[in-house]
């Protein structure tokens, strides 16, 4: 159906794809796996006409295929569904599905009845019960995903490229998506998709291709691989130890929190963290974990309760005050509240620590570049250099820049909110060992994570939140996932 031959692409002199070849057959689900920065998204974008390759050729259904725009690719039969969905929120589901191919009557007036009818047919084909009349704004991420697929179906796409379609979906929504993919497959559509979720690849994909550092590593029927071997291909080395052992905890309490409350978010939360300790905040979505973390970091201050940092009172009203007192946070919302995409790695990394390197307000450039060099080395940031805009880096590398930013100030307490969300196994392992390094340096870590194995293995103690209240405090060394879940579930 679609064949890519020796595709190469570089950005700003940094090769992202090097002579990658790939054959996609009609009616197959083909998973593209690899670490962040391995080139998966770029490869898809080349096929979708978003990036022109520097070298190599593509063929679609036997004829040469060189789309110069996403529109051209779409006309030829290749549709892409992006990681960040782009619906028009104030239009209806039906209008979104048929956007740009609206059935029109004479005089170019949109035939509304036909829009509804065709949208309904397309959605029904995906076994979705969404109403074409519903406003787009009211849809969940999963439902939006289905609308995007219906959109591609309406254009008779032969190849559907999906970049991490399940990253933001609940299990239930993912199941619905898999059913929709099954229907596409039955129609002979080739589906290429990327994911970081190991279990779903083996359920869904017919074949798996692994990319590493922009090169093709292996293409294999999914039945001939297992999780361990897949990871080994992705990372380039066997994953013997993912989680480092827990470090030693010192007796002195660094941060203590008493009866902290914020209306509508969390209520009467108390805990303390010792020097060198990782306190895990576990719980379901909406249990108030991020909110508690944000209160500690001054992002959204608590209404009542008290906090102490060492023997000082600690009541941050802004992130600025929290940082000055010695509490830094790495947010879960990397794009929205983390990176400044147009600015280079250097300026992103030193943003919080400029005070210490600019006596009298004048930035000491020698000190700044030294700090950035060291940060990029210590955190393994892969970029063409300190001047590359951070928006061009992969998610994992952006995350490393943000962690480096938080640590440049040498905070006593580091708040990590979902530090491994949306990043790949290799980068995860690096971040795990980083957490260990932080505690070895005597810092206290407040870790929020939705991944139970992760939060259990990294933490010394676990605080389980349920509907804004502390449901349990567990010793992480003996806690099981079932136990954590039992406390996290609403009664």
């Amino acid at each position: 159906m679609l064949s890519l031959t020796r595709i190469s692409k570089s950005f700003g002199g940094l090769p992202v794809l090097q002579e990658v070849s790939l054959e996609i057959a009609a009616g197959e689900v083909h998973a593209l796996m690899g670490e962040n920065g391995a080139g998966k998204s770029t490869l898809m974008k080349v096929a979708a006409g978003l990036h022109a390759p520097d070298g190599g050729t593509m063929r679609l259904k036997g004829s040469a295929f060189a789309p110069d725009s996403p529109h051209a690719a779409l006309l030829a039969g290749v549709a892409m569904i992006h990681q960040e969905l782009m619906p028009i929120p104030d239009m209806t589901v039906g209008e979104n599905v048929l956007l740009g191919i609206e059935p029109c009557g004479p005089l170019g007036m949109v035939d509304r009845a036909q829009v509804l009818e065709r949208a309904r047919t397309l959605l029904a084909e995906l076994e979705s019960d969404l109403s074409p009349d519903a406003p787009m704004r009211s849809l969940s991420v999963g439902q939006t995903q289905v609308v995007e697929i219906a959109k591609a179906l309406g254009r008779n796409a032969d190849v559907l490229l999906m970049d991490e379609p399940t990253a933001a979906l609940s299990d239930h929504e993912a199941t619905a998506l898999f059913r929709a993919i099954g229907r596409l497959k039955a129609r002979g559509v080739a589906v290429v998709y990327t994911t970081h979720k190991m279990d779903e690849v083996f359920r869904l994909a017919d074949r798996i291709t692994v990319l590493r550092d922009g090169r093709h590593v292996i293409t294999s029927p999914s039945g001939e691989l297992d999780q361990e071997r897949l990871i080994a291909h992705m990372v380039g080395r066997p994953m013997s130890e993912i989680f480092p052992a827990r470090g030693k905890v010192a007796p002195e309490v660094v941060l203590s929190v008493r009866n902290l409350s914020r209306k509508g978010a969390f209520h009467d939360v108390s805990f303390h963290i010792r020097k060198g300790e990782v306190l895990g905040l576990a719980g379901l979505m909406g249990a108030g974990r991020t909110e508690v973390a944000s209160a500690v970091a001054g992002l959204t201050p608590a209404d009542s309760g008290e906090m102490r940092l060492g023997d000082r009172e600690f009541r941050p009203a802004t992130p600025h005050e929290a940082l000055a007192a010695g509490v830094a946070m790495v947010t879960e919302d990397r794009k929205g509240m983390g990176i400044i995409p147009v600015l280079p790695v250097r300026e992103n990394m030193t943003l919080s620590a400029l005070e210490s390197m600019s006596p009298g307000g004048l930035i000491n450039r020698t000190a700044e570049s030294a700090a950035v060099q060291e940060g990029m080395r210590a955190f393994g940031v892969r970029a063409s250099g300190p001047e590359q805009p951070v928006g061009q880096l992969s998610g994992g590398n952006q995350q490393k820049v943000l962690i480096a930013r938080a640590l440049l100030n040498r905070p006593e307490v580091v708040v990590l909110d979902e530090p491994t969300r949306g990043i790949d196994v290799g980068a995860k392992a690096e971040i795990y060992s980083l957490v260990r390094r932080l505690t070895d340096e005597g810092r206290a870590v407040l870790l929020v994570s939705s991944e139970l194995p992760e939060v259990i293995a990294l933490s010394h103690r676990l605080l389980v939140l349920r509907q804004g209240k502390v449901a349990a405090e567990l010793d992480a060394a003996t806690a099981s996932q079932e136990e954590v879940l039992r406390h996290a579930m609403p009664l």
Partner: protein
Amino acid sequence: MNARLDRSLLHRFGILLVLLAVGLGLSVATDSFLTVSNLTNVARQVSINGILAVGVTFVLLTGGVDLSLGSVVALSGVVCATFAHPSPEGHPLFLPVAAGLLTGAACGLVNGGLVTRGRVAPFIVTLGMMTVARGLALIVSGGRPVADMSERLTALAGDVRGVPIPLLCFVAVAFIAWFFLKRFRLGRHVYAVGGNEQAARAAGISVGRVKLFVYALCGVMAGLAGVVLAARITTGQPNAGVAYELDAIAAVVIGGTSLSGGVGSVAGTVLGVILIGVINNGLDLMSVSSYYQQVVKGVIIVGAVWLDRRQARA
């Protein structure tokens, strides 16, 4: 290589090329363009727009806008002229200049305060200030030009060894601004706020303070422009400066600063200012009717930005 540097070099190069082409064209088309007296004249004319453009560069970098500049120029000029009457004690210089600058600063602080504390969109706040400042200028002056300015003040529009003082002001302001944005912490914060305001706050930047600063600074620049203008026309004109803000914003945008914030430079702004000045001058020299001048200028502004964006995408 360094992608950002590449792009900005290319960018400046692009505008520089346009500038050189226009300059070359005018040198060939007219006898008078490439003369010392004409170029001095151009320099004198661009200075006021240049000072305003440097100020508004800061505001645009944070993703804001300031539409009140022209009116604040008029108000500051009138206030300056009011304090500049010669008296038995002599000819004042410091007082009228300080009064003009402080008037601008006050307007800027009100703008910034309403944007940050009041959370009103910059477009609306400064649109309001545009009307209020114009009204105040008319009130203070009683609707008539404020004349009888001391010679020491009007001398500010003169020359030092053949170099116009307004030009020296522009050059000094531009240089300080350039250095400040490049090397100072607060300058870095200006870019960060424009690049991603939420992230800037989360990274510990006091976003409100940064915004207050840029609007106040922009106000001070408008005050300075008002003083220079009053000195040049030897009166405080309550009706002066109409639409000055648009010329200033046009120069900044031509210079490559993004209206959505986070991207841009003073160096670009300076080139944009010169380009607009040279075009104005050239149209005058070729005795194009002032009606046609406006059309030509508008087309060139949009054309320059269009060319530039095309280049950036390639």
